[in-house]
């Protein structure tokens, strides 16, 4: 059913041997250390320069930068990114709600249901989707999904709730909902590929044990495979969320770029990343600094998401 991955055994001994190698290797070691130092310096300079650029806006707006709801670009503000942060989280949440169930199911299907000769084809299709540049997803959303949403999906959803929350407001296609849908397609390959890898290392003995005890296929999926690979799948979801949070151009093309407090899933808005892309050319007043501050907020959010993913994968390694 699956190939066993050769683990790196005794990697610490290898590391020991490499670091105590002959003196003729010294120039090589200097180059390596230099590169590592250079990399660290680049990271520090990068963070410092974003902070430096954002400083005037931080000084001007203080904590209102995060809690304020007024975003008045093209001058000296005020700059409050609360609605941008909300929009970023809402679109990512919509994307996850759509992509996670579909992604995990596809991963299971690719591993266990698809006949072996089509598995490589399925896997390469997933990789192909992952390699599509985001601007292409944006165009697809703009040209095909906006009319579909405004003519079909939005009237249907509004019909369900009787035009009440969360499906109230203008049906323009461009919306948080559409941004979420486009993001879900974009993060789907990430979730499928990683959960497939994670599920494929579930020990065959466990699966065969379950089957031999008379469990049905669905019972094996829900009681054996998913619990065993739970942490890895969480990692896949978090990585998908990371991509959705930072996605810029595809979102800028479909979200409507009208910064306002979200009042419905149909409302237009702007995420942190899409607003930077839309307004970065603005020269007046503190607008540039405020956009740098958005970058800072976004960096903090994505860094914490990645740290969370790191903790999960470490725990997965420890339990494996």
């Amino acid at each position: 059913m699956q190939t066993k991955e050769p683990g790196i055994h005794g990697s610490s001994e290898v590391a020991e041997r490499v670091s105590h190698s002959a003196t003729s290797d010294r120039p090589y070691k200097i180059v390596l250390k230099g590169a590592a130092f250079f990399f660290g310096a680049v990271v520090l300079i990068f963070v410092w320069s974003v902070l430096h650029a954002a400083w005037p806006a931080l000084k001007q707006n203080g904590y209102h930068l995060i809690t304020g709801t007024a975003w008045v670009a093209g001058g000296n503000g005020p700059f409050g990114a609360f609605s941008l942060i909300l929009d970023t989280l809402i679109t990512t949440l919509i994307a996850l709600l759509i992509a996670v169930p579909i992604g995990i199911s596809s991963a299971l299907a690719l591993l266990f249901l698809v006949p072996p000769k089509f598995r490589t084809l399925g896997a390469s299709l997933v990789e192909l989707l992952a390699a599509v540049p985001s601007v292409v997803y944006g165009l697809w959303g703009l040209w095909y999904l906006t009319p579909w949403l405004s003519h079909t999906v939005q009237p249907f959803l509004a019909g369900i709730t009787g035009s009440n929350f969360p499906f109230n407001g203008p049906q323009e296609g461009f919306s948080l909902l559409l941004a979420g849908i486009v993001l879900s397609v974009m993060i789907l390959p990430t979730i499928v590929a990683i959960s497939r890898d994670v599920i494929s290392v579930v020990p065959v003995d466990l699966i065969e044990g379950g089957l031999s005890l008379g469990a049905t296929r669905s019972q094996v999926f829900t009681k054996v495979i998913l619990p065993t690979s739970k942490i890895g799948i969480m990692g896949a979801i978090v990585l998908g969320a990371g991509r959705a949070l930072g996605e810029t151009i595809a979102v800028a093309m479909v979200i409507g770029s009208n910064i306002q407090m979200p009042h419905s899933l149909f409302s237009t808005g702007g995420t942190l990343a899409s607003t930077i892309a839309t307004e970065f050319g603005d020269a007046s007043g503190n607008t540039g600094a405020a956009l740098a501050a958005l970058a800072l907020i976004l960096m903090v959010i994505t860094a914490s998401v990645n740290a969370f993913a790191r903790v999960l994968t470490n725990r997965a390694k420890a339990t494996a």
Partner: protein
Amino acid sequence: MKKTLRRNLGVAIATIGLLSTMAVSVANAATLTGDLTFTSTDGLAAAASSINMGGSSFDEPFFNAAIPVYMSQAAKQSGSSAPTGLALYSPTGSTTGKKNVVAGTYQVGASDVPMGTVNQATGTSLDSSIITGAGASTTLSNYVQIPVVLGGVGLMYNLPSVTKKFPKNPVILNAATLAGIYDGSITSWNDKAICSINPKIVNVKKNKAGKVTSSTCALPNTPVVPVFRADGSGTSYIFMDYLKAAASTSFAITAGSGGISTTKPIGTQVFPNTTFNQGQVPTAGLGAQKNAGVAGDVEQTVGAIGYVEYSYILLQHTLPAAQLINAAGKVVSLNAANVATDAANFSATPPSEGTDGVVSHFSIVNGLGASAYPIAGYSWAIVPQDFKKLNAGSQAAETLVAMFLDWATQSGSTAGQNVAQQQGYVPLPSYVRTLAASQIAQLTYNGTKIVLN
């Protein structure tokens, strides 16, 4: 097993289908992709000898057409190969155009609003963060501003049912209804204010004798979606300048009125501004990037209306432009002659540049002539006055810039203004061409005048 195979084949085919539709959509959207590649041409700045031009997307159709024509004419004249170094124009928006010429990224930055424009009400400069400073590059008088094109701003709208039924009667709007649409107080196309100025767009019922028994407004109950520029834009400035001049009382930017969200308190407003209404837009509004983005969003959305430069309506898109009621109370459509009439109304006070580098009298909205189309403006090329002093490039580069702009602002069958006319712009009036020539004559390299040959 067979069943699953079939099912999975189905999935595979569906996926391939999905991918191919995406490929098709890319081909369809060729006009849009250029606008969304933000930095491709900026990267060329590293090449020392090349001349980078960019900024206003109002000017993009002109520069894109004019640069190749100039190159081929120059090649013919010299009998050898075309001058190298004129890179293609990148439509990054007026605000970016100004910013990048100060930053040294562009040798020619284009903007629909001259640099250093001061808002009369607040006394603040629109470019305070880029041109106030001690260095030469942040001093306004170290740049020359050259008018390059004159164009009209059209209001394109997407109402397929009306356009089909009344192909010869484009929707008529006036300053008050436009202000209402863009401040959110008019939310539907069959609003009384719009119906009352469109007497020809009506459903007429006749009795047997052929007598009209009733005539009702035929505009649909479709929500109005005002599309605005989300990025810094000179086109926004011209449009807001018009609203301020023609509908100052109705275009009130006060919190809570109409559809304007009360959650967006007004900051220190500079009006008009290159940022549309500084974020005070109706909740139903759609923000888009560049002229092409506005045109694209209007095409995608039934009920949408958006402001774009004339050539985006004339050459690239299939939607109609609204007719406007001008200051003389006449219904006018958007065409080159009517824009020229509007500009001619301001010939007594032509645009001029003071010694401090500030351009005055550049606003030409809401002209009084009977056939004047009221939303129009000049667009400006901003060039460092002395390439050596501002470290903007070589003497050869500055000469090439001067010669190109000199050609671009001249009339005549082989000169730039003729190319502009083909693209839907209006040839510059003679007094503006005189200004352009005197501005170009100010260019020096290390203190020596640039010789045009």
